[in-house]
């Protein structure tokens, strides 16, 4: 059976989600930040995590965005193949939701219309939209506004198959080391291994939207996530990059088959303002 969904529904949800994501961290992120404050060994690091906790409280109670960089709106849509959209173009509806969210929600407009001419579009559009067609008759919307302090520190490494798992570990540790204080640690590290050049980057991005504390179903990948988290926290970068034992809150890895000649690794770094919200309609 085909289910009709008016695209206005998409606009409305995306508007609300852009505003909400920028004022409230998801419960998993919130819990991870509180845990980090308890466990941090450096006194200055602890003080900074305390400030970040206070910041989250002020943001939600007084409706001030958690961070002034309210991000470029990254939207994942998982569309059931029995859905029929009516009332306009889906892409326009998504961008309209972003426009309304950023303008009406007092969020910062951080998008320039051309990467070299650099004139601000003044409504934070266009969004970055990733769609996937799945089974069923519902639409899963994920909104993940992405700040660029950490986005700028992300990388794709086209490794040789011979470099293997050690090569992957080095790539992730190198990216985190280079990011250091620029990426507003504690960070969340999204990693995509395999696929192609663009597939590994997209997997890394999507890995950032996974709940903190949830691991890969593949046993060796789960182990790799745990080992890398421990080693990243051993780098000493710490909260705010000012030294300490909490450099990352999670390492989330997604994998995909790849070509016999390649081992692509994407590392997408996100700051502690790792905003992600999910709704299903």
């Amino acid at each position, binding site marked *: 059976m085909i289910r009709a969904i008016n695209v206005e529904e998409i606009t409305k949800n995306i508007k609300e989600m852009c505003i909400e994501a920028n004022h409230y961290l998801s419960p998993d992120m919130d819990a991870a930040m509180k845990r980090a404050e308890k466990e941090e060994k450096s006194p200055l690091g602890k003080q900074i995590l305390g400030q970040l906790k206070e910041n989250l409280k002020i943001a939600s109670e007084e409706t*001030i965005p958690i961070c002034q960089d309210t991000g470029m709106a990254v939207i994942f849509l998982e569309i059931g193949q029995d859905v029929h959209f009516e009332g306009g173009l889906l892409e326009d509806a998504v961008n309209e939701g972003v426009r309304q969210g950023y303008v009406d929600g007092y969020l*910062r407009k951080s998008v320039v219309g051309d990467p070299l001419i650099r004139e601000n579009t003044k409504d934070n559009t266009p969004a970055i939209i990733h769609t996937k067609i799945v089974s069923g008759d519902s639409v899963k919307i994920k909104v993940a506004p992405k700040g660029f302090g950490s986005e*700028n520190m992300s990388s794709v490494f086209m490794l040789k198959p011979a470099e293997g798992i050690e090569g992957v570990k080095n790539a992730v540790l190198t990216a985190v080391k280079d990011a250091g204080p620029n990426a507003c640690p504690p960070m969340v590290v999204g990693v995509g291994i395999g696929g192609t050049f663009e597939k590994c980057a997209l997997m890394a991005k999507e890995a950032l939207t996974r709940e903190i504390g949830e691991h890969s179903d593949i046993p060796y990948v789960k182990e790799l996530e745990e080992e890398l988290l421990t080693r990243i926290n051993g*780098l000493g970068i710490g909260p705010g*990059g000012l030294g300490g034992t909490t450099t990352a809150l999670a390492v989330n890895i997604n994998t995909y088959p790849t070509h016999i000649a390649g081992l692509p690794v994407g590392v997408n770094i996100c700051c502690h303002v790792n905003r992600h919200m999910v709704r299903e309609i």
Partner: protein
Amino acid sequence: MDKHITAPITKEVARTLKSGDYVYITGTIYTARDAAHKRMYDILQKGGELPIDIREQMIYYMGPSPAREGRPIGSAGPTTASRMDKYAPQLLNLGLGAMIGKGKRSQEVIDATVRNDAVYFAAVGGAGALLSKCITSSEVVAYKDLGTEAIRKLTVENFPVIVVIDSEGNNLYETAAKAYCTEK
């Protein structure tokens, strides 16, 4: 060590600040980020005059979110300072007293900071809501057309920052991370 200082800042005061000090700033500071720096740089290349007298001033690398009614400013945390590295040495040579941002600086900026008895402070990245509470007034003083990237004059009260690079060239990002590093 906790210290309270006023802005603008003299070289004498800057010299008393040491890498790792926790400092509360009260007074007047200016904001400028990528686009405003580029304009100031282009003006100086052409031999023109800057829109503000930057001697002894502090520049905060920040572009706020819009203010809701009745508030001076929206969320107001630091942006990554390295993007201003190209422009900072020239401003320091002209007498800029301090920079507030987050993240690493180039050797050229560190050298210019030492040469001019200036200081680089970090504010906590991603604490924009909290930091906005220390800003009591905000006024656009130049480049209004740049929106969030315009130059603003801010009045701040006990605005919390940490000295990263001091006038002797000590760099907290290097020293603090080493102290907790267990990864060879």
